[in-house]
């Protein structure tokens, strides 16, 4: 398939297939990594970022490398491309591409391969393109450098590539600059650049992490489609197990710089052998599982790579650890093509299922008390004026556009939507960090906007917030103890001498040790910092906590721990949560009721199970279709209707129903007026005229 000439413009070949190492016989791997070791020399010591990594990629295959932050997956990809910083990185081992050893090559020889035979796309589409150069130039650059194409030919090829990746109106795009394109479009441009010279291998490092769920689905479908059509092998690096299940042929699981399991997607998901892989798969909240079981999590956190544990790196967190684990485990092949690095691979299955049956605690169901509405939002609107120029009237960003919703005491309302839909703004309105442009926000019956300063301070004690970024939401110059004590002192809840005890109590409540009160935030891990954020929110004994993407920035295994903690606290202290997130599985797990937002409006509202079992609104259905489930068997059989288009600008929302340009059910009538919210089933309301 690599000999196929790629051209969609008639029969004229615009790009000759890559010359160099001869394409392989069937069965010969395209990329063969053997015992790859990467170390970084830092002032703190030597960080062993990748150790003993070995795997293969065959032509046309899609291989996923899964792991959490710090597992070494990105570093291993950069090592293949030799893009690691020359001063500090030491690479050893063997990387053979088409039979040719890459690690010994000179810089110039390697440069000829980069972008030509092996291409790489990165995580952040917003910053990966040069802001001062036109898109056209950035796409034609590899063509002129590697293939020596002249202007006319490279321009034609660029247009061909943009069409291939689904960008409309490619001719005018060539003259645009990156900042004029959205995130999804920029990532498509990156893919176009990657495919420009018809590479045999494309390495994608977290290509969709920074994108919304629906855009993510579009990009990944595109990559899979191109991979099949053009015969390009793809290595996709990600921490999202759903993506892996949906798209990958083979999976390599990395933990703490080592490969711990390798096999086909079906086998690794269907029958995970390594305790870490097993733990990951149970720790991920899933759309296809019940919500009543607590997430079974992996205790602890990934090791420090400056000083990793001896023997098996997973040893400190493993439930099945025995003395033998002090020795490095070697790879055992349990089934053909399915390997795991664990001494107890053969026995684990038997032990684990027994343990799991005993252990699965069901969490008590939390339902609100029906008559007790603690937070009532009525017709809330928040518009931000944007100056369009000196003499023109300011335009309005309609961030929140007529939202009406009730939250009962003791329940969790999940607010779901993609970036730019207004969910964070709504959260801020609830906390009165912004004043609504119109509408009322009633907390325990009192309109927040009408309260004076004194009244508001009293209310602030009852409402708290946990933010998304555990790194920037804690003041780096205050100790943990000071951070947690601050709200107590501000609201004068306790006399000074009693504060340290209360801080210790709170720390224990969130699963941290009391001595951590003396630490600074930078000394804690992401998960620990988020716990501190939770402790701080609990310090004033609030009734309502707004969790604004509180677990989105955490690794899967830590996420599970924090979710369990939040649920447990809710149970114990009778808290009410407004849980804002974009990850559907997490929202489903933790919420009792869910509201779906799109461009400032609520399009559907229902109890959690009902919404995910019977979604009615086309947008909700699209979101669910786009979110992959970490189970390849289910994924292979699911119908794949990917929603097209992008989120319209909130400066200029479409007339009538805001979803109509992208909706498969849209008719002329939809453009006439905003659809009213109708209750289709008890507690289940939808804003659509066609369902």
């Amino acid at each position, binding site marked *: 398939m690599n000999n196929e000439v790629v051209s969609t413009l008639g029969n004229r070949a615009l790009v000759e297939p890559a010359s160099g190492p001869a394409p392989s016989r069937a069965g010969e791997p395209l990329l063969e990594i053997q015992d790859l070791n990467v170390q970084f020399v830092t002032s703190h010591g030597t960080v062993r970022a990748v150790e003993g990594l070995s795997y293969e990629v065959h032509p046309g295959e899609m291989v996923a490398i899964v792991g959490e932050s710090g597992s070494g997956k990105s570093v291993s990809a950069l090592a293949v*491309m030799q*893009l690691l910083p020359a001063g500090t990185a030491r690479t050893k081992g063997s990387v053979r591409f088409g039979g040719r050893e890459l690690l010994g090559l000179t810089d*110039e020889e390697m*440069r*000829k*391969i*980069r*972008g*030509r035979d092996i*291409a*790489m796309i*990165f995580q*952040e589409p917003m*910053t*990966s*393109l*040069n*802001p*001062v*150069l036109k898109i056209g130039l950035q796409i034609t*650059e*590899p063509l002129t*450098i*590697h293939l020596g194409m002249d202007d006319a030919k490279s321009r034609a090829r660029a247009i061909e590539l943009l069409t291939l990746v689904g960008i409309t109106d490619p001719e005018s795009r060539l003259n645009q*600059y990156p*900042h*004029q394109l959205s995130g999804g479009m920029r990532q498509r441009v*990156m893919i176009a*650049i990657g495919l420009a010279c018809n590479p045999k291998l494309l390495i994608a490092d977290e290509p969709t992490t920074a994108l919304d769920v629906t855009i993510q689905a579009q990009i990944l479908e595109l990559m899979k489609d191109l991979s099949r059509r053009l015969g390009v092998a793809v290595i996709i690096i990600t921490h999202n197990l759903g993506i892996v299940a949906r798209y990958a042929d083979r999976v390599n699981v990395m933990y703490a710089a080592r490969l711990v399991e390798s096999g086909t997607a079906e086998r690794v998901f269907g029958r995970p052998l390594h305790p870490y892989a097993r733990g990951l798969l149970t720790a991920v909240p899933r759309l296809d599982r019940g919500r009543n079981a607590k997430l079974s999590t992996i205790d602890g956190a990934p090791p420090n790579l400056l000083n990793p544990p001896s023997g098996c790196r997973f040893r400190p967190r493993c439930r099945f650890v025995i003395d033998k684990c002090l020795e490095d485990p070697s790879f055992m092949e349990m089934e053909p093509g399915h390997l795991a690095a664990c001494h107890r691979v053969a026995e684990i299955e038997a032990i684990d299922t027994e343990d799991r049956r005993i252990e699965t605690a069901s969490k008590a169901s939390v339902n609100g008390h029906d008559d007790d509405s603690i937070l009532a939002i009525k017709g809330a609107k928040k518009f931000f004026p944007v100056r369009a120029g*000196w003499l023109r009237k300011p335009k309005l960003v309609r961030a929140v556009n007529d939202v009406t919703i009730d939250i009962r005491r003791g329940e969790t309302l999940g607010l779901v939507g993609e970036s730019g839909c207004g969910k964070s703004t709504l959260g801020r309105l609830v906390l009165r960090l912004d004043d609504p442009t119109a509408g009322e926000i009633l907390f325990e019956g009192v309109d927040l906007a009408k309260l004076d300063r004194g009244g508001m301070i009293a209310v602030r004690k009852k409402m708290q917030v946990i933010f998304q970024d555990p790194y920037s939401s804690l003041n780096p110059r205050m100790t943990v103890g000071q951070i947690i004590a601050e709200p107590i002192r501000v609201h004068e809840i306790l006399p000074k001498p009693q504060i340290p005890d209360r801080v210790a109590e709170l720390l224990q409540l969130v699963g941290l040790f009391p001595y951590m009160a003396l630490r600074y935030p930078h000394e804690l891990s992401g998960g620990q910092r988020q716990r501190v954020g939770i402790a701080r929110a609990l310090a004033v004994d609030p009734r309502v906590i707004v969790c604004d993407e509180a677990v989105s920035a955490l690794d899967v295994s830590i996420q599970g721990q924090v979710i369990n903690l939040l649920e447990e606290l809710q149970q114990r202290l009778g808290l009410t949560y407004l849980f804002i997130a974009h990850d559907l599985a997490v929202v489903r797990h933790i919420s009792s009721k869910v509201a779906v937002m799109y461009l400032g409006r609520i399009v559907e509202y229902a109890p959690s199970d009902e919404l995910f079992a019977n979604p009615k609104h086309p947008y909700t259905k699209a979101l669910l279709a786009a979110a992959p489930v970490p189970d390849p068997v289910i994924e292979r059989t699911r119908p794949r209707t990917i929603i097209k288009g992008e989120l319209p600008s909130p400066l200029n929302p479409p007339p009538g129903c805001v979803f109509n340009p992208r909706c498969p059910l849209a008719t002329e009538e939809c453009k006439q007026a905003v659809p009213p919210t109708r209750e289709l089933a008890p507690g289940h309301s939808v804003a659509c005229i066609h369902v």
Partner: protein
Amino acid sequence: MLWYVIRRLVMVIPTLIGVAIAVFFLIRVMPGDVVVVKLRADGAAISEETIQAERKRLGLDKPLYAQFADYMIGLAHLDLGKSLWTGESVLKEIAIRIPVSLQIALMSAIIAVAIAIPLGTISALYRDTWIDHTVRVVAVSGLAIPSFWLGMLIILALLSLFNWLPKIGYVPFWKDPVANLAVTIWPAISVGYRYAAVATRMMRSSLLEVMREDYIRTARAKGVWTQLIMRRHALRNAMLPVVTVIGLEFAFLIGGLVVTEQVFNINGIGKLFVDATARGDFNLIQGLVLLIATIFIFVNLIVDLLYGWLDPRIRLT
């Protein structure tokens, strides 16, 4: 781009008006009475009537608002008034002296840019090697050495090594380029060295930051070679803060000319400034301050326009 240029040009006008008003009032706050100083210059005792008569003659006895009105009307006609000391029109006094000062300022700016960009780039590329260290030492010296002292050193060096001193007396460039340069190059170097130092350091740090950006990694991943990455991808992005710094430093440069012109005995704006201040000749001071403010505003206008040319995000929003 056109809209951007027009917008910026239009914004200059209210800025100038604001500066003119501020200058008027600030000057009148200054102590010292020009009439008294001028008439008492030889030490003789002057009677009160003479002082008042002189005041009246110069129009200083009018109430403040009348003086202000005269001033603003005068400005509209580009008439800056008459020097209270020499009686000549302020505009004329400035006009005869400005060519040399402006030329020195421009020359030092050219020297600075010509040195800073290549040196800053090399320093960033060969970071932490002896090349980098040398450049950084040279740059820090430029910041540490006062320009007038450097000027004096240059004169001493020329005298002792070559037995030659720069002539006094300015010849315009088009009449006799060699003679002109023989006079202007030395003050240009003294002032330009510091100017270059600031720009070099900025270039270096800006380039180091740009090299860490994601799009440079993308360029490498595409197989672009280092030199081309520098030229096409890195430099243009790195230039943005450097251009800003060059614009800002130009203002300090004009101020620095004050002392340097004394050192090299050049009859320029700087010298005029010193003299006028000593005598409390506030019409002249007013005119000079207004002039410098105008130069500064236009230099920054150019910087802004350059910015728009370099960075499409600025001109297209």
